[in-house]
């Protein structure tokens, strides 16, 4: 492999790892927020246990989202400085807004939410998780603005020195590549979050966990959320074809990997829509009692992650050989002076480190699911006798 292939592989590996965690974050954030709202309104303890259990899974998942996201942000400068040289005046703007506003607020409010249990007033603590949710979706929006610019450099014009400049920020934000892809990504998140809730609840209901009400509610909530997600994903997935035909004709015809990924993603999407709309949703009231369906729900859980990665492969590989479609090739965007040694070194460091941590994170998520709500550590109260933490009166 040459330098270009290695640089692309590094971006693909870190980007795919990042999205695996982001897609679940997007799906689970509103579910946790809704559950906590129900607890705030009704005061019923089951909603608090639900919030803490799913919230802990959400938060453990979030950890890898941050770590992979940091590497993503710096990688533009490391391997693709040609992009910021050529199109930075346009491409940098949405990324700046994403980091400066959306992520800054998301991370700060998440810290307040995680460590604010039993410290913040109830409604302020609830507001924190809603703000985390809102800013997570704002983050996704601005990242999709930046990505859609690469698919179709709308709102920009070429300067006499050959570089791109921002011409019309309205056109940047109403890019045909963005309008249907953003709701598609939102749908994919809801689908993933919903199926994870349903699958994990199925696991415990199948094993006759004592928290029957908690998992019954969670399964129903998950199925409804997954159905909404599957519907949005499929509808806005198909709607994108018109825009793709307009701005990137032949995107999936000339490229085998993009075409095959697209095909299998569509297949999985149709499977989700079919299963959710015609099977899971109509019987959602009885589903928690029908134990024979639970292995199916468990088996479905990993599939939205596969579909999400296939979707990104189709979108990004289909853009090749362009980095900015029709304007800048990936070859020209490569940092001038990037050597085989440099890119090999960073590829090994990032892949090994993030790959290993991703495995650890998934083992921890699986472990948290398996141990159930009674072992949830997030938001545990000081007076709780089940507290696994250290005694408060310790000295150094």
């Amino acid at each position, binding site marked *: 492999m040459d330098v270009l292939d290695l640089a692309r592989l590094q971006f693909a590996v870190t980007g795919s790892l990042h999205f695996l965690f982001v897609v679940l974050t997007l799906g689970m954030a509103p579910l946790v927020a809704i559950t906590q709202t129900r607890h705030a309104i009704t005061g019923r303890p089951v909603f608090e246990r639900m919030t803490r259990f799913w919230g802990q899974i959400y*938060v*453990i998942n979030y*950890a890898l989202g941050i*770590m992979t996201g*940091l*590497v993503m*942000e710096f990688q*533009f*400068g*490391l391997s693709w*400085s040609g*992009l*910021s*040289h050529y199109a*930075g005046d*346009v*491409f*940098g*703007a949405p990324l*700046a*807004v994403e*980091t*400066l*506003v959306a*992520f*800054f607020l998301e*991370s*700060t409010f*998440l*810290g*307040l939410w*995680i*460590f*604010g249990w*039993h*410290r913040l007033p109830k409604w302020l603590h609830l507001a924190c998780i809603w703000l985390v949710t809102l800013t997570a979706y704002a983050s996704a929006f601005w990242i999709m603005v930046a990505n859609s610019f690469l698919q179709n450099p709308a709102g920009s014009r070429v300067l006499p020195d050959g570089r791109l*400049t*921002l*011409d019309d920020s309205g056109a940047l934000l109403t890019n045909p590549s963005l309008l249907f892809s953003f709701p598609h990504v939102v749908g994919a998140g809801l689908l993933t979050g919903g199926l994870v809730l349903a699958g994990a609840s199925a696991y415990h209901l199948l094993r006759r966990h004592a928290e029957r009400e908690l998992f019954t509610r969670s399964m129903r909530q998950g199925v409804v959320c997954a159905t909404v997600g599957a519907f949005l994903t499929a509808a806005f997935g198909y709607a994108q074809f018109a825009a793709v035909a307009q701005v990137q004709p032949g995107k999936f015809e000339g490229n085998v990997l993009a075409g095959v990924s697209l095909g299998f993603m569509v297949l999985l999407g149709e499977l989700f829509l079919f299963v959710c709309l015609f099977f899971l949703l109509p019987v959602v009231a009885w589903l928690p009692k029908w134990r024979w369906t639970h292995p199916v729900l468990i088996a479905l859980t990993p599939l939205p992650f596969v579909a999400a990665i296939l979707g990104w492969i189709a979108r990004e590989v289909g853009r090749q050989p362009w980095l900015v479609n029709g304007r800048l090739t990936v070859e020209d965007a490569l*940092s001038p*002076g990037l050597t085989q040694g*440099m890119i090999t*070194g960073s590829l090994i460091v*990032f892949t090994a480190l*993030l790959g290993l*941590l991703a495995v*650890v994170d998934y083992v*921890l998520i699986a472990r*948290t699911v398996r141990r159930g709500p009674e072992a949830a*550590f*997030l938001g*545990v*109260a*000081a*007076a709780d006798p089940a507290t*696994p*933490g*250290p005694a*408060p009166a310790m000295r*150094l």
Partner: protein
Amino acid sequence: MDLLWYAVLVLLLGGYFALEGSNIGLGMLLPALGRDQPGRDRLVAAMAPFVLAGEVWLVAAVGVLFGAFPQLEGEVIFALYPLVVALLAGWVVRDAGLWFRRRVEGPRWRAFWDGALCAGSWVLALAWGFALAAIAGGLHGPVITLPGALGALVVAAVLAFHGRTWAAWRLPDAIPGGTPGGMSDATPGGVRGGGRAGWALCGSAALAALPAVLPLAVAAPAVLEHAAPSQTLSMVGLMVVPFVPFMVAAQVGVWRIFGRRRSRDAGTPSFF
């Protein structure tokens, strides 16, 4: 306009060193200040609520670099290639230590991730030192140099000092030199010590920000030359300005809620 964005960049990077620098420094000193596991748990619990709100300052600084000075972003990050890779690796390992250390019970698991927290913090501090020295030197030639090593030692020392000062402010009875004696928040001695410790903390925060702000001041003419056109700067400004009050409120909220005077509910187990 470009001058304003430059000020924002300096503010964000300086803020990162002042606010997150103490967490990095505390991570570096974790085995020295926390001799046993309960001691380390207590130190990590003290910094935990501040980490998420601290590291966003650097993410935002790089975002501003990308949005307002895009030409520079590619050049600077690429010129510092091995250091940026080391910095990211250190940052990720440090964060993994924080997020994972309490996820499984058992002394060996926690000791392992405490080791990751400490090692990651050291790599982060040293990589920053090399990088800031290279930026101060104008980014000519190799980035691993003798002045770079000196810069690394200075930054590591400054951050460690800041971390220790922060710990003395946040956990006065836990740190030698802090005000000894039980839950000192409630005692008059603790309050007096708090005032002194507060001023010491402001001083060490300013000291920690200095190694970041100075090279940026030296590089100011070169940075300003590379500003994005005004159309881009206005668009980013238009999107950011309405949210500044929220950003300030959230950051102030973190310090008000988890700051020194509110440590009465220290019995609540920390998530990190």
